[in-house]
């Protein structure tokens, strides 16, 4: 069963720029996919369409059974509760502690205090930050902040984790750490992970499923592979 199915999708922005041309692909449950390509290749647009920050101009996108293209604004939260999203710039709330930042997800969806506490601690343990739950984001390194963001994304046990250049602001060692954390989540929780990146080293080292985009078109979709192939 495909968890994500993209059919004949085109995306043209209001300013006339076409970001995606006739995209067709499907992603299986539990896979770890790298979406790669240079700047302007359409990988960010692709990720944004999956969590419906952008709507496709034509075509259909099914994520976990929801037709994203037809989803009404007021119902978007139903989709987002099935997803975790991680960004290049972390997007943490600076006035909240690590614990509060992760708990924010649970509070936003109306979970009880006990459930929130249990899941937040579990998520923070998974990313290896249990010792720093009372720190504020500006007291952490970039890699640690990104791990907090990952904990926030997975705390609600989503089926899919979308990562838009999560290692873009990090040095190679920290980047590798982040990818290892994602791989751990993929293995232990069975979460499907889709990560957009242009970091060749990581892609070549991990040898995972690869989707290569160029100028908005799908060039390759490999079960296992590196950047150069």
């Amino acid at each position: 069963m495909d968890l994500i199915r993209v059919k004949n999708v085109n995306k043209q922005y209001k300013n006339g720029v076409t970001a995606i041309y006739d995209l067709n692909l499907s992603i299986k449950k539990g896979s770890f996919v790298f979406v790669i390509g240079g700047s302007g290749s359409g990988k960010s647009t692709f990720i944004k369409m999956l969590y419906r920050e952008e709507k496709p101009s034509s075509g259909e996108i099914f994520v976990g059974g929801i037709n994203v293209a037809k989803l009404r604004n007021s119902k978007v939260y139903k989709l987002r509760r099935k997803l975790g999203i991680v960004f290049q710039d972390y997007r943490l709330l600076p006035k909240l502690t690590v614990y509060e930042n992760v708990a924010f997800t649970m509070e936003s969806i109306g979970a009880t205090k006990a459930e929130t506490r249990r899941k937040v601690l579990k998520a923070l343990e998974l990313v290896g930050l249990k010792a720093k739950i009372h720190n504020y984001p500006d007291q952490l390194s970039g890699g640690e902040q990104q791990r907090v963001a990952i904990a926030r994304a997975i705390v609600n046990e989503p089926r899919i984790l979308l990562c838009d250049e999560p290692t873009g602001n990090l040095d190679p060692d920290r980047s590798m750490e982040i990818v290892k954390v994602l791989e751990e989540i993929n293995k232990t929780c069975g979460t499907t992970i889709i990560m957009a990146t242009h970091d060749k080293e990581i892609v070549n080292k991990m040898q995972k499923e690869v989707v290569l985009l160029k100028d908005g078109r799908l060039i390759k979709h490999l079960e296992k592979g590196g950047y150069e192939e």
Partner: protein
Amino acid sequence: MKFFRTLRRSIRDAFKSVFRNFSLSLASISCITITLIIVAISILITFNVQNFTREMEKDLTIVVFLDTDATEEDSKIVMEKLENMSNVESLTYQSKTAIKEEMRKENEVFNEVMSTWSEEDNPLKDTFQVKVKAVEKIADTAKRIEKLDKVSTVRYGEGMVDNLIVAFEAAQKVSYGMVIALILVTVFLIINTIKLTIFSRKREISIMRLVGASNFTIKTPFIIEGMVLGIFGSIIPILTVCFGYVALYNHFDGYLYSRMITLIEPEPFIYMVSGIVLVIGIIVGMIGSASAVRKYLKI
């Protein structure tokens, strides 16, 4: 259960936000306060004008004078005819003797002069005081009465009454317009001040959207915050109404300029006006913040 949890959290967040962004909240509150004071004053004026008009209308009477030679029989016939007129609410008859006695009681000079009058040379006339149902048709009714047999003169304070009615209608329309315009201005001001508060929390809202908070969850704290601002903003206007109006009422002893213009008694009037002001404050705060936050719920 989940609904109440969300609601409780919303109320907590709303109060937190009011005090955390205190300077902005203060700006919104003073905005609401100033406009609500003006709204309250307009409401006080509107109600008083309305009350005064109603009182005046109640007092409006047509006085029908019969001919001096009208006998008791004649008055009975006129009375019957008056009673059959559709616009006549009630009427009272006063014979010329009764009028004479009344006038003598009222004034010493009259008393002296009239004491010499006998029943025959009493120059006064028998009268009917007629109250009408519809004040606008008073001129019509007066004309019809005038045509009756044995009726000499009909008076209802023509020019003055007509002018007063026109003036009060205009005053009422103006004050209604003012109240509505002021409320609209308040909504606009509140939208703008709350937009500032919300702008500083744009990031928070976008993250809430991303992690799957429903629009209801996101909106509710802001709407409650608007209500809280509305409540705080209506405190001073309500105090102004309560103390100000009572002071005014006592100062003028319940009348304005003359015995003709009576003010509405403060109790329970001020409580009603305070209630209206509070409700306007709350609703305006709600509408203001709901429309300010809507913009951020699209992505």
